[in-house]
């Protein structure tokens, strides 16, 4: 078991391992997405309060959950790269950032699209949306720092420190935004919080969540493979791989 993980730490083995896994992940994502869309759009009943517009949660809420999850993955693998000087962890952290930013952006836009019929305006300083916006800033700062530093190893370590600082800050930011929001909006309940959700609505949500998660690993592996090739371009195994493939 341990030797398996040790081998994954080497870019060469990770490249091969991820290459074998990618088709499987791709098919699973496709199947789950189709299942989630089918149950979400056809099976789940109409909401008695929000009508059909609530169906946006099936693409919105999983994106919001993933935006937090990806930040955790990014910060933790960055921390591993920082402490144990593991090249693969650095690559994973750098590859996760754009995916996380995309999820965050998706959560923001779909949240706004959901808010328009519910609140009557495109944007409201709702706690969840505001947190998501700040999270997007954190992602963009991470990406900007990574691209500003030329040396890859320095960039990875600097980004890891930033991500860890952000990880400590996220709960604080989240709490303060929630607190600020309850002060300013008083009794208006945020529409995203649904105390008890019917099972027929929960199932498609969970399927979509799973689909997003597998999709994340699919894209993460694809990005890491490209990144590995780029960083290891002067090694023998990449040369062999490229020339044999042609």
């Amino acid at each position, binding site marked *: 078991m341990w030797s398996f993980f040790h081998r994954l730490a080497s870019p060469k083995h990770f490249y091969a391992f991820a290459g074998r896994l990618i088709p499987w992940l791709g098919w699973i994502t496709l199947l789950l997405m189709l299942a989630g869309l089918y149950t979400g759009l056809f099976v789940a009943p109409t909401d008695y309060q929000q009508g059909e517009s609530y169906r946006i949660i099936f693409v919105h809420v999983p994106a919001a959950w993933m935006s937090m999850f990806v930040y955790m993955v990014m910060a933790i693998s960055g921390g591993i790269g*920082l402490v144990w000087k593991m090249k693969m962890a650095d690559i994973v952290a750098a590859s996760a950032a754009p995916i996380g930013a995309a999820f965050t952006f998706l959560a923001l836009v779909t949240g706004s699209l959901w808010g328009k019929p519910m609140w009557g305006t495109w944007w409201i300083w709702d706690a969840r949306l505001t947190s998501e916006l*700040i999270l997007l*800033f*954190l992602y*963009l*700062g991470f990406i*900007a*720092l990574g691209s*500003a*530093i030329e040396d890859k190893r*320095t960039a990875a*370590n*600097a980004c890891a*420190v*930033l991500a*860890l*600082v*952000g990880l*400590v*800050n996220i709960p*604080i*930011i989240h*709490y*303060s*935004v929630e*607190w*600020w929001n309850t*002060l300013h909006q008083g009794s208006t309940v945020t529409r995203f919080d649904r105390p008890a959700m019917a099972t027929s609505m929960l199932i498609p949500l969970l399927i979509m969540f799973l689909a997003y998660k597998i999709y994340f690993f699919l894209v993460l592996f694809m990005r890491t493979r490209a990144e590995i090739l780029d960083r290891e371009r002067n090694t023998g195994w990449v040369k062999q791989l490229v020339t044999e493939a042609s």
Partner: protein
Amino acid sequence: MTNSLLAAFVVILRRDLTLALRTRSEIANPLLFFVIVISLFPLAVSPEPKVLQTLAPGVIWVAALLATMLSLDSIFRSDFEDGALEQMLLSPHSTSILVLAKVLAHWLVTGVPLILLSPLLGVLLNLPTEAMPALLATLALGTPVLSLVGAIGVALTVGLRRGGVLLSLLVLPLYIPVLIFASNAIATAGAGLEIRGQLYFLAALLALALTLSPFATAAALRISLR
């Protein structure tokens, strides 16, 4: 050992203060910026006392945030350029303590004048007198957090030629909790309500920043100087 560490702390603190006092404009410029930004708001929004009163806590705090941002670079930049920073990392003393000395010097030079100046600006913005102690208290608790968290950002970008805008991208989102609680405390105090909760939260943030940020800054410096 602890004595020599303390001595090193004092030496760095005194050195940074001397250097800062020698170039007075560097202290004065962020303050001037602070005043100008604040005086823009009545011109841009409305000179109506009622409007200014509601805007005041937020405006003062946002201006303080931006003024601190502008002065952050001076914590490590010149020491990075003349190599003093490298010497500091090579010294046998714990880097995080030395970092703390530098951050303290930065706060004494930029944060304290800001606090002293703020009642005047409160008057300009029609802040009610009841809110003045809250303004001072939040600035006293909040500006050290700004310096401490900002130091991490400077340490990460000090090796870059154009780190200025990047620095604000990295640091401003992290300032949000301080901004929320501080400006809310001032507004609440202005309405004559209890603000102990907000102040406790700011104090907790300060304690957290004080314990964690020197380590992060030291780690970031080591990465930037490699």
